[in-house]
């Protein structure tokens, strides 16, 4: 059958008509951004750690937009305050879902993350967790729709326990001070268990790791506990809270000279504490979530770009390293969308399971079985400095998270 000129013209006209009819939709699709809900604690005692966490996520989004966005669309972060509470997190999640958003980054506290997770399946949403370390997130409370893109309590605080055991083999009396929460109890038990594993005298009774001293999650007066520590004969203390309570504890400890009495002191939030102590800084160990001053991170191209972006955006040449957690979590979900070529939750989940991507702290893998990320965890010795920001990192210990991560048991309680 030959193609007549009339039919060709009719076909061309029909195609043009379809094109014109579909154009607004196409134009709309190109103009409509991919929206990512950013749910962080923007009020409450964790703000000093969770706000930079969110800023990191926003910079990751900005970096993708600079490279042309995803799926031909720009990306937009929509911030919400989870109010450092389960109820606040649920309200923020439902608010964002009501706007048609199904991709979330956040959960800077375990309470908020654990409250959000049961909603995700119903909302057909994907959540990358940035901050929450409670073990139950990837164990008994596991859901396919959530990925934890940072170390869990076992890796973070267990790793710290190992690092302290290796650094201070002669310290035999340790005390953990932990908040009375799922996160605090996990931090205490994983620190103790891993210290015992790595300490040269871990198998003997010579190494004494006392039962955790529990404190309120938002407690601000630690003087009785500090007095007990002063008289207890312990040589090393791990203070496992984060946010304002950690700084209050350090401030009050300094006022009676506890740091001079102890041989070692370590904590769970790193440079946030150092920056707050300023000129009253004393030497301690803690995590660093992004050792941008130290090799090999210093030479990492993504780290250099992230640092430059941070300084340009926030005019702060000493970025809080917790910002890298948000950066990684946002990168993970955006890489998932890129790999899935879709924002559909099921497609993104499938794409993220087993996903490997680059981050400012090196390569990261999302374990398929329990959605736990595995990369490198860092611990730093923070010491006073005479110039701003009045602290410096003396040394860093890097631990391959493959060596500290527990085996995946999603749906079951974590047992040491």
């Amino acid at each position, binding site marked *: 059958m030959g193609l007549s000129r009339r039919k060709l013209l009719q076909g061309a006209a029909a195609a043009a008509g379809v094109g014109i009819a579909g154009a607004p939709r196409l134009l709309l699709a190109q103009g409509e951004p991919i929206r990512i809900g950013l749910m962080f604690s923007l*009020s409450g005692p964790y*703000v000093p750690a969770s706000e930079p966490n969110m800023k990191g996520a926003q910079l990751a989004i900005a970096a993708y937009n600079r490279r042309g966005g995803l799926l031909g669309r720009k990306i937009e972060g929509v911030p919400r305050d989870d109010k450092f509470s389960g109820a606040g997190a649920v309200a923020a999640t439902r608010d964002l879902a009501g706007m048609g958003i199904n991709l979330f980054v956040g959960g800077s506290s375990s309470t908020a993350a654990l409250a959000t997770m049961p909603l995700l399946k119903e909302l057909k949403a994907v959540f990358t967790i940035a901050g929450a370390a409670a073990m139950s997130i990837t164990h008994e409370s596991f859901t396919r729709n959530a990925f934890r893109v940072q170390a869990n309590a076992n890796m973070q605080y267990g790793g710290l326990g190992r690092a302290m055991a290796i650094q201070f083999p002669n310290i035999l009396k340790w005390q953990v001070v932990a908040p*009375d929460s799922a996160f605090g109890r996990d931090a205490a038990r994983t620190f103790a268990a891993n210290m015992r594993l790595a300490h040269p005298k871990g198998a003997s009774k010579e190494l004494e790791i006392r039962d955790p001293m529990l*404190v309120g999650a938002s407690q*601000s007066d630690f003087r*009785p506990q500090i007095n*007990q520590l002063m008289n207890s004969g312990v040589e090393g203390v791990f203070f496992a809270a984060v946010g304002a309570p950690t700084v209050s504890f350090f401030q009050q400890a300094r006022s009676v*000279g506890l740091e001079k009495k102890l041989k070692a002191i370590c904590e769970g939030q790193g440079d946030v504490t150092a920056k*707050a102590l300023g000129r009253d800084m004393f030497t301690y160990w803690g995590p660093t979530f992004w050792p941008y001053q130290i090799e090999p991170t210093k030479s990492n191209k993504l780290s250099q770009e992230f640092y430059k972006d941070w300084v340009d955006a926030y005019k702060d040449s000493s970025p809080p390293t917790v910002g890298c957690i948000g950066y990684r979590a946002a990168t993970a979900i955006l890489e998932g969308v890129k790999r899935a070529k879709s924002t559909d939750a099921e497609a993104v989940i499938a794409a993220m399971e087993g996903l490997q991507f680059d981050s400012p702290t090196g390569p990261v893998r999302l374990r398929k079985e329990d959605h736990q990320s595995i990369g490198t965890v860092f611990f730093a010795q923070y010491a006073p400095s005479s110039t701003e920001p009045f602290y410096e990192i003396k040394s860093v210990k890097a631990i391959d998270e493959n060596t500290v991560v527990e085996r995946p048991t999603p749906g079951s309680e974590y047992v040491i």
Partner: protein
Amino acid sequence: MLSEWLFSVYSGIASGLAVFLVAAGLSWVFGILKILNMAHGNFFMVGTYVAYSVVGQRPESLAAFMGASLLAAAVVGLLGFITDKVMLRRLRGADYHYVLMGTFALAMLVEGVVKLIWGVDLTTVNPPPLLDAPVDIGGVMVPRFTLFAIGAGLAVFAALDFALNRTWAGKLMQAVAADPWMAGMMGINVPMLLAVSVTASFALAGFAGGLLLPFQSLSPDIGNSYLLLAFFAVIIGGLGNIRGAFLASVLLGVVQQVSTIAVPNFPGLTVYVALAVFLIWWPNGIFPPAGLK
């Protein structure tokens, strides 16, 4: 072990008197206006930041520190005067639900403004050099600043108690609190006295903010760490009663700190238990409200 118990009692008194510094203004404004000001903790926070802006991380002297606290009192007092003119006087006589919602909204507004001005970063402020070193009392190292906090709490209580019960102005305020209509009929300038009360209550919050600046870390959440206990103290003491707030603050402080040794596995719980027990035995507070006492 005995020294730990004694220290916890001492620490409880210090902590309780710190709470009283916050509760005093809260109790006062409730006694006169019958307004439970949810924003009180936030104005306390404004006081801490104002004082911090003056003295920085290391106050040079006790005089500079006290001066900064007084300046904080003046600034927050002025804010209280404006708040009264713009908002609180419109809420007088309104249902208490509206008052709670209005002052809660004010609290959020103040927190937002503080974050815009001072940011969210944590920081610490030292006591002035004279109060910075610990003191050895019977083998226990006591932070000297806690002695100062106890002294400040006692001084503020004594001054308030004297002003309210032994002065002409205080008796006028009691009259207004007991029956504002009758007080007006007797020729008392009720609106002016109410405005003065609100301003003084806010100034107290600002003063407390300056004085307690070195007590814990400084962040936009600092008001919340005191506000809940201050509310408890006002309720247990008897709504609007300064003496009741004083007594309840000290009791709560001691209960809270002693419980860290007595029941270490339940941090923070004992304060709620204490509140429940007090409300069962004294449902109207230790000193039931009958105007400002």
